[in-house]
């Protein structure tokens, strides 16, 4: 098929690249408005307390400063994407250190920052819950008293009979895994400006906003405005990775309140420290797995109990953990499954959507487990996955039969194995894994200072290892969300065209991808397409740009719009050229051909214009219906899936505990690739984030307070940290998506940590159960977090 495409599948330079390399691209903080004021947040220094009173008398001498707080809210006081539990300004309680009680507004931002100390609060501190395992204790204080429980959500999944399955198993093993709190670390901190719309009583919002329509809804709720009076425009977005949703909605609402109150544009921009303290993160998980299997390698039963720390607010927890329950067993066909996933409230920083969206955590657990099973029955990691991996027609844990697309799990696995000579190298490395390191207590915790006769041979210090991980991933939102997307395409009389989709550019290259899709259908070059700025005033709500749904959902809507217009052109040409069938019409290279004649696309457009042809269309794509039985956790959860396999090759330094990633080979089936350059970029970026998750990243808290609040302490990968990354695409066919184009952004990230953990085991002979695998974990088998000394590793 690929030969038939003009542009799809090639490498295309991003539309926004020119603006970005010249510094002209306008990010949220680059906007300035005449008369603009600033808003600065006031926070407290507690993590859990009742608010008795707030005293502003210290500000009496500063009439130029306006205070915005709960009393300025005419609509909803609490908001949320799923559950409305997060106050725009706190008024009853403080539940986490990021909480804001009021905002000071004025012209001098630095003066406002100093004045925050003048706001006094009378607080009554409450007992803290920072350990998610204690959140559901009968005597636990409720974080949100009106909810009468600290449980955010509980998803069960039941398939077959696990007890029977364990009974029929020769081997049964149980393991516990944990993963840390992760900061998105988008390079651009949050910023937004709200501008009152003169004479219309509305407000316009421009900011680093991931989902403009969600922001619009939340702001309208808070202001008690109709949706149409809030117009949200997305500035160039400096990275989001799922992180510029809930918090941006709330900051936008605060800015809007101030703009309405002062009748001036109000900008709010966060420092990195504020961004870290108030923004949500990726959920830490505690995962208990029990698995039964026989000598033939077939897994008979899996029992999974997962606890997610949702932190102080529900945010996207209900969606994130739902993906977890669907995918917790991994891409394996298992007869008997019993899964429980719970998310709970604590006083920790709240957690929500982040690239991966509930999958990187269970993949780390389940792929570590698969390697253990392989070791017990004496087959290779490759073999065990081949035995249990899903094939066409397989039934997933939620009872969904996989069909209507290429079920390419084994193909990506085989390709990765071949590319890296995996099985052989795995055997080799495990043979030479340092047994001294493994067995000698001297290196394990109690003083690793070597005696004279214990000097290690230099050659023994660096050990090589190789590991792999596979996944299946449901595309888009699945049965939990409303899944539809819109696109608007308007062709002009000179042959150029406006395009916009309801899904928003998050920096990943969506505008370019969509332009390619529209250009492909019309046979024109993507440069002729002008992508409009994301504005809720001109395009329909298409749900959030999360869950790697932009290509499959938005791409389909764009294709639909372009096809509608193409069809109109074809019909016009039938009469114009007096031909019977449109089968001979070919839209290619900015022309339309019919046998020996042709017309340029721009001439065609000017002709159409003169004939009054409607050259604008709204395309729509609604995901096929999926359903979910809440009680049993059964159903066709997602309408289609993608598959991936990553192999990690590492060097472990046994003296320092340092792990270096020599190479990652990433084999993915994302469906049809639209822009090869963009796709590769997604792999490089995702793998690097995944390696950070494996080896360095992790936010720690003390009494709910974040310890690492800027990039001097938050370690994200730098240019020197990762070796080679190789991306290989196996483009499976699918009946969904534009020509079968599905998703890639998240699969690239979710596998890497698990593959690295397996490679580290292969190198050192030791298995680790907690991320990140930093030197202290490798060397001491425990973390050095002072409040958490018990976190041993080797169970």
């Amino acid at each position: 098929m690929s030969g038939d495409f003009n542009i799809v599948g090639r490498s295309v330079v991003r539309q926004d690249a020119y603006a970005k390399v010249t510094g002209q691209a306008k990010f949220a903080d680059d906007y300035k408005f005449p008369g603009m004021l600033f808003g600065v947040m006031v926070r407290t220094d507690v993590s859990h307390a009742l608010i008795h009173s707030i005293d502003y008398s210290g500000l009496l001498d500063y009439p130029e400063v306006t205070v915005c707080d709960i009393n300025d809210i005419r609509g909803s006081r609490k908001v949320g994407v799923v559950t409305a539990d997060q106050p725009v300004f706190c008024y009853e309680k403080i539940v986490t250190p990021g909480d804001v009680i009021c905002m000071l507004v004025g012209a001098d931002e630095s003066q406002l920052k100093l004045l925050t100390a003048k706001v006094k609060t009378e607080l009554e501190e409450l007992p803290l819950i920072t350990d998610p395992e204690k959140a559901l204790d009968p005597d636990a204080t409720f974080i949100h008293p009106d909810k009468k429980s600290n449980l955010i959500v509980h998803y069960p999944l039941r398939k077959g009979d696990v007890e029977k399955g364990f009974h029929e198993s020769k081997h049964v093993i149980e393991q516990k895994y944990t993963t840390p709190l992760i900061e998105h670390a988008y390079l651009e901190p949050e910023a937004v400006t709200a501008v009152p719309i003169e004479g219309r009583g509305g407000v316009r919002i421009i900011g680093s906003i991931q989902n403009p329509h969600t922001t619009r809804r939340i702001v309208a709720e808070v202001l008690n405005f109709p949706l149409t009076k809030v117009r949200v425009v997305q500035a160039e977005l400096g990275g989001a990775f799922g992180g510029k949703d809930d918090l941006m909605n709330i900051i936008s609402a605060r800015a809007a309140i101030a703009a309405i109150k002062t009748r001036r544009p109000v900008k709010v921009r966060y420092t990195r420290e504020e961004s870290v303290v108030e923004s949500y993160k990726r959920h830490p998980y505690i995962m208990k797995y029990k698995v039964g299997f026989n000598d033939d390698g077939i897994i008979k039963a899996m029992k999974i109990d997962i606890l997610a720390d949702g932190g102080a607010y529900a945010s996207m927890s209900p969606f994130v953990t739902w993906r977890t329950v669907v995918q917790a067993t991994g891409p394996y066909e298992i007869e008997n499954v019993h899964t429980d996933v719970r998310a709970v409230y604590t006083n920790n920083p709240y957690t929500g959507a982040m690239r991966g969206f509930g999958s990187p955590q269970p993949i780390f657990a389940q792929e570590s487990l698969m390697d253990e099973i392989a070791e017990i029955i004496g087959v290779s990691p490759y073999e065990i996955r081949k035995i249990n991996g899903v094939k066409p027609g397989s039934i997933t844990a939620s009872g969904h039969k996989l069909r209507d697309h290429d079920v390419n799990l084994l193909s990506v696995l085989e390709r990765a194995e071949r590319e890296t000579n995996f099985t052989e190298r795995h055997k080799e490395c495990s043979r030479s894994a340092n047994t001294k390191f493994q067995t000698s207590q001297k290196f394990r915790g109690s003083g690793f200072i070597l005696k004279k006769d214990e000097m290690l041979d230099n050659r023994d210090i660096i050990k090589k290892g190789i590991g792999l991980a596979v996944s299946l991933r449901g595309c888009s939102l699945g049965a939990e969300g409303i899944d539809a997307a819109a696109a608007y395409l308007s062709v002009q009389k000179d042959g150029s065209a406006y395009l916009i989709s309801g899904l928003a550019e998050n920096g990943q290259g969506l505008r370019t991808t969509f332009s390619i899709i529209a250009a492909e259908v019309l046979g024109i070059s993507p440069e002729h397409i002008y992508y409009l700025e994301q504005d809720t005033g001109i395009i329909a709500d298409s749900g959030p740009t999360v869950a790697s749904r932009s290509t499959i959902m938005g791409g389909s809507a764009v294709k639909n719009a372009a096809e509608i217009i193409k069809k109109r052109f074809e019909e016009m040409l039938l009469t114009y050229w007096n031909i019977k069938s449109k089968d001979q019409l070919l839209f290619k290279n900015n022309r339309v051909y019919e046998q020996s004649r042709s017309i340029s696309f721009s001439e065609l457009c000017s002709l159409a214009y003169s004939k009054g042809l409607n050259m604008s269309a709204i395309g729509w794509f609604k995901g096929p219906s999926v359903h979910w039985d809440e009680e049993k956790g059964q159903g066709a959860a997602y309408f289609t899936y993608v598959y991936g396999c990553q192999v990690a090759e590492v060097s472990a330094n046994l003296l320092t505990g340092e792990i270096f990633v020599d190479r990652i080979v990433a084999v993915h089936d994302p469906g049809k690739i639209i822009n090869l350059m963009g796709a590769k970029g997604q792999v490089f970026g995702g793998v690097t984030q995944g390696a950070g998750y494996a080896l360095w990243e992790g936010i720690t808290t003390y009494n709910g307070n974040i310890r690492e609040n800027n990039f001097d302490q938050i370690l994200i990968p730098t240019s020197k940290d990762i070796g080679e990354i190789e991306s290989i695409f196996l483009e499976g066919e699918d009946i969904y998506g534009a020509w079968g184009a599905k998703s890639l952004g998240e699969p690239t990230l979710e596998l890497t940590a698990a593959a690295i953990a397996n490679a580290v085991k292969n190198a050192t002979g030791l298995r680790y159960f907690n991320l990140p695998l930093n030197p202290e974990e490798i060397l001491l088998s425990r973390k050095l977090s002072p409040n958490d000394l018990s976190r041993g590793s080797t169970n």
Partner: protein
Amino acid sequence: MIRRINLTINGDKVGIDVQPSMRLLDVLREILNLTGTKEGCSIGECGACTVVINGNAVNSCLIVIGQCEGSEITTIEGLEKNGELNKLQKSFMEKGAVQCGFCTPGMIMSAYALLLKNPNPTEVEIQEAIAGNLCRCTGYKQIIEAIKSP
């Protein structure tokens, strides 16, 4: 205490009356409206604010304007000359080194300073030169590629 500071910015001589304690980053963004230079951390860790001063890549969030008297400063806005992009800008576009673009100006300025001193850097030298420029989107591979073959 306002003082006049004389500088050359992107080839133009300018005199600015300003508090000498103002950060260079703020002078660029707020006074001169050169918003291509970005602020990501304010503590010299992310490199988004990198500009080139007298041939060296510098974090403009760590420099106050009082230190810049008489310097020659190049920002991202100064690379395109007579409508012609700098070769680094071109190769960043062509190699796919840009995703969200927030790190891009700083990244290009670090690379620009490197190439001023070392026109044919090795991969390791490139990694070293941009080690102070964080990028969360690209995984650096295409950036390194772009700097290698501008």
